[in-house]
């Protein structure tokens, strides 16, 4: 059977960006400069720049700028320190991972879970074969399990043909978290490697990560996810060659030699997760705040079970307290009798389900928070810098939207309903790191203001500031430049500007997620499709198209008024807002392009 990604099988993952003390120091200086100039700018914005005749416009904008600045502070805290834990040799026996081992010493046992629902069984077969090829320098009891929530005979047949265990269950309670829980109940390995249906482990995965578990506090190790099927687009030379023939190819090639590769149509959905894994999560190691992202992570079973027990105990206690508080007592009765308390506890213990993986759409981050907040055990997490597996990226906008909505909705649900900022046990750096993640999803609210502001000005002539003056430019420019330089050095080696643009263009998905969570509706989503969905998906990006249309219309309207001699706008205000509007349109254009993106004919098979 052939897949569209067969031609990418030989691709190799990028190496992690090497640490440089000098670069880190330069980043810190630039970050401090950005914070200082940002405070200087924002303090002036609040005290001396508001247009008091249009506070309905001025206040939301300055509030949006302040919220974005808070996000920037959290981002800098995240990037402040690089501290990769040392990679140690893989342990030979369980006693090297569990110091107070009860019972005889023995080789490690690792369960590999392939969680699947409706993906092509042949795709899972590839992952099973790669998992079997994982190396380990010592005897290892490696057992591969297919956790099939689809209850499919074809999947069972593939598992049997490959000689691996097939596990299913009568229902789909808890979705993937429930599927994993069922797998945990049916198995007993010391460690669990979690794979999605499309995860393809590299031979080095275990030998390079199991050494971390020599530290008995290490609960899980997350390895970077790498999408090996990202569309590569075409180079400038090739594109110009197609349009202009040989001269075009020569000119394009020369430009690329000077400025480096320039590609069109590359990674249209901005799925490359390097910025997330190699920069954000990796730099949370110092704070012990790198959270689990599911696929390609290895877990210590003891930690998963113990965290679940603690969570379960806390839930039973909460239920008990609620019930006892509602009991009416007779006059003179000071406390609920012990017998009644025991009965209430028994009832709560029966009513509450014990879940090794929290039944939540974002079970990975939820479980991470539970483990990180366990001060008694002081569980550690590791973000391993090297890619140790490959997987498939969303290949169409529908799959991409489902995935993003799931991430946003699940994370925001935790923020609103079980906010770790108020959870006992997390350290301040951990709270800041989780806070940074939550804050970034709330960013859709202020991004909407940034998208609307130039449109409002250009359509009405009403300014949110007390004049587009030299003072405004003199205060804003140093801040913007310092911020851009800090981002450049902080993410050195990884193109970050496309991520910044796509962050702005996510606003409809994130707003929908915020609305869904705030109104208490279920975060309904389908399993992220692993097969390419056919068609164009412009209906999914109508808000972005509408904002682009409004912005371009407003620019045309304001320019025509200005050319007709209207004095509704100052020239500086007009120029600044036209630039701002174009900047917004360019940021949104990427996702609109992605909605209509079709794979090259040579790749257009599933």
């Amino acid at each position, binding site marked *: 059977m052939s897949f569209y990604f067969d031609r990418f099988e030989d691709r190799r993952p990028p*190496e992690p*960006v*090497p640490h440089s003390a000098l670069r880190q120091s330069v980043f810190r200086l630039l970050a401090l400069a950005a914070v200082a100039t940002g405070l200087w700018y924002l303090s002036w914005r609040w005290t001396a720049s508001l*247009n*008091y*005749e*249009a506070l309905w416009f001025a206040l939301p904008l300055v509030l949006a700028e302040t919220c974005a600045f808070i996000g920037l502070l959290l981002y800098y805290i995240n990037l402040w320190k690089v501290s990769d834990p040392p990679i140690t040799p893989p342990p030979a026996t369980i006693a090297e991972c569990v110091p107070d081992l009860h019972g005889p010493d023995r080789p490690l046992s690792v369960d590999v879970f392939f969680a699947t629902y409706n993906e092509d069984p042949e795709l899972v077969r590839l992952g099973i074969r790669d998992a079997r090829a994982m190396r380990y320098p010592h005897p290892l009891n490696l057992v591969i399990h297919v956790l099939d929530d689809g209850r499919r005979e074809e999947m069972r047949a593939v598992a049997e043909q490959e000689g691996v265990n097939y596990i299913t269950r009568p229902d789909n309670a808890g979705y993937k978290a429930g599927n994993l829980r069922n797998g945990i109940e049916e198995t007993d390995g010391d460690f669990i490697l979690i794979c999605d249906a499309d995860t393809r482990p590299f031979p080095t995965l275990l030998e390079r990560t199991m050494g971390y578990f020599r530290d008995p506090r290490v609960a899980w190790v997350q390895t970077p996810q790498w999408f090996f099927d990202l569309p590569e687009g075409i180079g400038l030379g090739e594109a110009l060659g197609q349009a202009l023939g040989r001269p075009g190819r020569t000119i394009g090639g020369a430009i690329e030699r000077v*400025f*480096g*590769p320039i590609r069109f149509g590359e990674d249209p959905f901005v799925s490359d997760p390097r910025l997330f894994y190699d920069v954000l999560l990796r730099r949370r190691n110092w704070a012990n705040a790198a959270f689990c992202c599911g696929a390609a992570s290895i877990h210590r079973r003891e930690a998963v079970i113990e965290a679940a027990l603690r969570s379960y105990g806390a839930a039973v206690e909460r239920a008990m307290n609620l019930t006892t508080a509602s009991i009416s007592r007779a006059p003179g009765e000071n406390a609920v009798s012990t017998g009644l308390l025991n009965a209430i506890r028994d009832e709560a213990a029966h009513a509450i389900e014990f879940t090794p993986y929290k039944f939540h759409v974002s079970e990975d981050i939820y479980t991470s928070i539970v483990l990180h907040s366990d001060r008694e055990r002081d569980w550690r997490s590791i973000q391993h810098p090297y890619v140790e597996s490959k997987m498939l990226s969303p290949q169409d906008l529908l799959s991409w939207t489902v995935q993003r909505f799931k991430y946003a909705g699940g994370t925001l649900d935790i923020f609103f309903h079980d906010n770790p900022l108020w959870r006992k046990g997390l350290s301040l750096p951990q709270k800041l790191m989780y806070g940074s993640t939550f804050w970034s999803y709330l960013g859709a609210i202020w991004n909407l203001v940034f998208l609307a502001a130039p449109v409002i*000005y250009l359509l*009405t*002539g*009403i*300014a949110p*500031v*007390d*004049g*587009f*003056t*030299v003072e405004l*430019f*003199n205060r*804003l*420019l140093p801040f*913007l*430049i310092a911020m*851009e*330089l800090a*981002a*450049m050095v902080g*993410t*050195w*080696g*990884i*193109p*970050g*500007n*496309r991520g910044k643009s796509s962050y702005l263009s996510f606003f409809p998905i994130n707003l929908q997620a915020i609305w869904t969570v705030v109104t208490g509706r279920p975060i309904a989503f389908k399993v992220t499709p692993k097969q390419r969905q056919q068609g164009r998906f412009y209906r999914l990006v109508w808000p972005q198209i509408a904002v682009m249309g409004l912005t371009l219309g407003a620019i045309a309207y304001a320019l025509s008024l200005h050319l007709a001699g209207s*004095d*509704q*706008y*100052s*020239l*500086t*205000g007009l*120029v*600044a807002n036209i*630039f701002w509007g174009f900047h917004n349109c360019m940021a949104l254009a990427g996702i609109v392009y992605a909605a209509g993106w079709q794979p090259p004919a040579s790749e257009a098979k599933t």
Partner: protein
Amino acid sequence: MRFRDGLVAARGHLIFIVVLCVLFGALQHLDRTQGGTDLPEASATTIQTR
């Protein structure tokens, strides 16, 4: 990783910085030569009075 690879990855940031500098230089020039206003630039009331 070679320095050049880092520089290639940083292209977007560098281009944006250059554009910002040009834009803000032009805006400052315009503000000085065209006599940028100190008044609230264009509020609902000032539109009517202009």
